[in-house]
């Protein structure tokens, strides 16, 4: 009702079914997160109780203080950051190269970049696993990093192909004739001019790695415990509380990242 009043005050009329849709959307999107919070905080929640039967024992953050969870979280963060940086650089270089490439080559290379994006991770993982084992990096963090970078670089190549196709290079041309070398032009003009795009690319690259399960399991062989792998282990072991805590940790960073990108886009006037 208060929303309706606000809308009326601003001169817009909100139909009742608009309010219903908004509430339904809130329940669908926030409901599962709320359940995760309840489950992570509760010591026990047995069927058929509607709500947790016992509150948290000891610290309310007890589930989050589990060493195995923090170790997996640290590894996931490291992998996400490394994947984001490597894939962003690869994607930028590939995207820039493709923008200038002859049309036939560009289409061929774009198709190649699409492949790891559209291929199911499980199928991609089987192929990468064979290569990783032969290269001697199977079951290692480096092997998993390479496996994460492959689809992320594909995504970001396509992303930068789009960004750079619309990018006005006259600024760079002018910088060159004003006396800047190619390297100075890149550092002093291209990088800052695309600041918002770099941020978006880094977030996108990190998110590709962040939720990756199939590739991590296949190439890491279970030896590389990331947050999704730990979540799977907790679920298999029937530890719902730790699984809920891990799931919450998996959910929060992407939500924060989305907020950061939105804010950056607003500040630079770019659309999200």
């Amino acid at each position, binding site marked *: 009702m208060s929303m309706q009043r606000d809308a009326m005050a601003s001169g817009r009329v909100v139909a009742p079914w608009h309010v219903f849709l908004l509430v339904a959307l809130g329940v669908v999107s926030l409901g599962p997160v709320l359940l995760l919070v309840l489950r992570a905080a509760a010591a026990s929640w047995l069927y058929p109780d509607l709500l947790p039967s016992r509150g948290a024992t000891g610290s309310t953050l007890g589930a989050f203080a589990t060493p195995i969870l923090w170790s997996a979280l640290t590894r996931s963060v490291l992998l996400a950051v490394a994947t984001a940086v490597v894939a962003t650089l690869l994607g930028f270089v590939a995207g820039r190269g493709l923008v200038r490439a002859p049309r036939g080559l560009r289409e061929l290379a774009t198709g190649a970049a699409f492949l790891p994006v559209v291929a199911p991770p499980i199928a991609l993982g089987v192929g990468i696993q064979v290569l990783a084992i032969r290269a001697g990096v199977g079951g290692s963090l480096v092997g998993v990093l390479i496996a994460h970078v492959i689809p992320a670089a594909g995504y970001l190549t396509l992303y930068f192909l789009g960004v750079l196709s619309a990018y006005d290079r*006259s600024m760079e041309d*002018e910088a*060159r004739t*004003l*006396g800047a*070398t190619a390297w100075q032009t890149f550092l002093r*003009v291209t990088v800052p*001019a695309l600041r918002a795009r770099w941020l978006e690319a880094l977030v996108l690259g990190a998110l590709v790695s962040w939720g990756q399960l199939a590739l991590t399991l296949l190439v890491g062989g279970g030896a590389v415990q990331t947050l999704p792998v730990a979540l799977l282990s907790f679920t298999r072991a029937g530890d719902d509380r730790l699984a809920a805590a891990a799931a919450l940790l998996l959910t929060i960073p992407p939500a924060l990242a989305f907020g950061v990108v939105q804010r950056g886009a607003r500040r630079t006037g770019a659309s999200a």
Partner: protein
Amino acid sequence: MIPPGEAPGLVLHDVSVRFGTRVGLVGVSLAVGRGERVVLLGPSGEGKTTLLRAIAGLDELVAGHVRVGGRDVSRDLPESRGVVYLHQRPSMFPHLSVVDNVGFPMEVRGIPRLQARERAMVLLERVQLAPLATRSALALSGGQQHRVAIARALAADPVALLLDEPFNALDPALRADVRDSVVESLGVAGGPSVLMVTHDVDEAAALGDRIAVLLGGRIVQDAPPAVTLSRPATHAVARFLGVPNCVAGTSDGRGTFTCALGQFACDLPAGRAMLVARADAMRAASAIGVADDRNDASPASQITATVEALQHRVGGTTLRVRLENAGSGDPLPLTVVAGIGALPTPGDVVSLDILRDRVHVVAADPASHV
């Protein structure tokens, strides 16, 4: 042309450039002295921008040489040619303030930031934008961005400055103002050689010390504006410049050209030729009757024409007239200026005064069927 003994700032020698997938300009030669402004005038799609980019080192030269300040820079990188290229729309660096945009060329050359800023402020004073120095460059209007772009170009201390249709994106009301400001900024002793391209004849006449007309991939005329506009080198140049009166006739090869307007001196070989004249070369002297009774009213020796329409423009009124007795059977349309006195009205018969020193006879364009 460049005064004898003065080192040219920019020299193109037999330059050919690729335009898309074909070689668009062939064997272009041109010299621009220090402090001189030459306007390269040609229709859109003629390869003017491509030529500028090739001179700046941003596109490849197919053949020929570019000399800047006496040095052959044909194979040099863009940053070491001493040439600054400005796009049609000023390319402000969005992450820098106005003063830092102007200081950019000095900073990339290793001049300390403080020193670069001081010099940038001097240049901003010159373009009257010093009060806006700390603003974001993107917060400026189009005209102000143009002036910042000029100040930034001057900060690079170029030997040659290339301007690619620099005022095209501006509103007509703002254009003249920015143009004057740019001319004032560039008009300093020992300033850069300025090569500007445009397809706007009025702009070329206002800005250029010389106008080089580019047609069909070649420079077909290179002369001061007054000469280019009043004495186009060819019929094609006259048509491109928009010279309204082109009257076909014949040269006898002995110094006389004959057409419907009479006989005129020319130095062409015998054959078809064309008299070209701007509107101000012919004056409708007076109304001597109306179309129905003109045969009775006009003396036999006088050229008379019937007024078809009046064309009112900011610069004055011209008359669209029709010469009935043009010889070929078809009436000959002409555009002339009105003489002193009351303006005639459509249907009036007027006598035409032809100012012989303002008409010019050129060889007929082979493609012309006039």
